[in-house]
């Protein structure tokens, strides 16, 4: 009996001793990776985008005529002096200038950071333009109820496209179909009457009815804070920009192309690209790799 008791005490001692030895406990599973503290840092892509984006074209209008001015991407504009005025209502005399920016491809929209989102909803886009008029350095506006006719090129125009106007806020340009106007389809593309100068887009609600999710972008290797992040919906022909690392509502099951871009302190380009489908998970773990300007341009051309 005494021996059994001694054995038990020995077992307890052995157990306690082995627990003490083994008890070099570890928090390894919940500790952040040391590399996380040395994430790759990036600058914004603003300078790169500015160097690549479509130039604003300037047309001097010094006489009346019936022919349109035509932008280098094919946008036709029929300017009319009598429909213009200064902000205080004064009439405009010749010459005056018309400024035009044309964005017809996802690449050009990315360079200009002009996604096609209207109050959080995806828009199928037929292109975006910025049309402005100036006289002696002052920006002109259209007289109330007056319009300028524009025609936007498209080889396969879609019916029922609406005229959207860009409303600038501190972060981005939102799109509003106000005042309401429709584009008609022509052999050339889309023909519409624009009631406001500034940003205008040809688009319509992408009509998504699928359940949506939101993607949050994370990385164990890169600081994503300054990156430019875009999601292109290839079937819907719609572009979303991601702000603060979390996307807007994106429809589950939709084909998407995700691209993240950044530039390091030595002006080397870095990117992450994924051609995938939206799934219900809400986190996208990314790691950026270096890329040349040429190769990045090829990717953006292929969106």
């Amino acid at each position: 009996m005494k021996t059994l008791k001694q054995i038990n005490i020995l077992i307890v001692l052995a157990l306690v001793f082995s627990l003490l030895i083994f008890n070099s406990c570890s928090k390894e599973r919940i500790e952040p990776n040391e590399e996380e503290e040395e994430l790759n840092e990036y600058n914004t892509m603003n300078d790169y985008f500015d160097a690549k984006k479509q130039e604003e074209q300037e047309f001097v209008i010094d006489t009346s005529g019936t022919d349109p001015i035509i932008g280098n991407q094919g946008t036709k504009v029929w300017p009319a002096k009598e429909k213009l005025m200064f902000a205080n209502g004064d009439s405009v005399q010749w010459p005056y200038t018309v400024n035009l920016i044309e964005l017809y491809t996802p690449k050009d929209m990315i360079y200009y950071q002009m996604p096609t989102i209207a109050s959080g909803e995806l828009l199928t886009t037929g292109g975006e333009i910025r049309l402005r008029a100036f006289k002696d350095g002052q920006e002109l506006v259209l007289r109330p109820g007056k319009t300028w006719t524009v025609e936007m090129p498209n080889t396969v125009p879609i019916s029922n496209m609406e005229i959207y106007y860009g409303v600038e806020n501190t972060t981005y340009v939102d799109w509003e179909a106000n005042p309401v106007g429709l584009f008609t389809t022509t052999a050339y593309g889309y023909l519409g009457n624009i009631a406001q100068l500034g940003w205008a887009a040809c688009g319509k609600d992408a009509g998504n009815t699928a359940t949506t999710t939101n993607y949050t972008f994370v990385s164990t290797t890169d600081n994503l804070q300054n990156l430019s992040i875009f999601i292109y919906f290839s079937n819907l022909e719609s572009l979303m920009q991601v702000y603060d690392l979390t996307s807007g509502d994106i429809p589950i099951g939709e084909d998407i192309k995700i691209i993240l871009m950044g530039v390091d302190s030595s002006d080397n380009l870095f990117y992450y690209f994924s051609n995938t489908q939206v799934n219900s998970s809400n986190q996208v773990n990314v790691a950026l790799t270096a890329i040349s300007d040429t190769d990045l341009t090829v990717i953006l051309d292929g969106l």
Partner: protein
Amino acid sequence: MYKIKNLSIVTLILILSVNLYSQKKWGLGISAIYNLQTESFGAGLRAEIPMNRFSLVPQIAYYPAFNKIHEYYAGISLHFNMFNIKNFTVYAIGHASYNGWLNYSSSAIEGASSANIDGEGGIGITTRACFRPFLEYRYNVKWRETNLRLGLMYFFNCKKGKKKSAGRKRKGRAIRCPAYN
């Protein structure tokens, strides 16, 4: 789906093993678990089949997603009753289990995997009644983590302890035999 299947298999084994011993004393219990290193709370379900001083204890444990570590365990323990102190029994624990680590991808551990085999050693204390609260302190050799388990077992086919005085109780004072007055 694969993970749910694993858990289902272990639960089935747990129930079957209990059925095999349905005529003998066996226990079923639940526990609350706290992992001191991952600061995670979990819940456990176990059966216990006593065999002399040993017990076989198939069990599952689940740490929900609100924890830093989201995982489950399915395995079996061997308990060895070492000694009794008054109404308590102190036992040693040896344990082997399959560990499904569900959020392993967010871990910084190189080569972290969803499927792991773990071993644990520990010590526990319980009572010897039909309802047995128990407290265990266990060390996970693979993860080098300790956990505390506080639970309650109920033993079926359990014979309650014999009363100290069997038969009819005497009431009142003892009657003196007149012969000795």
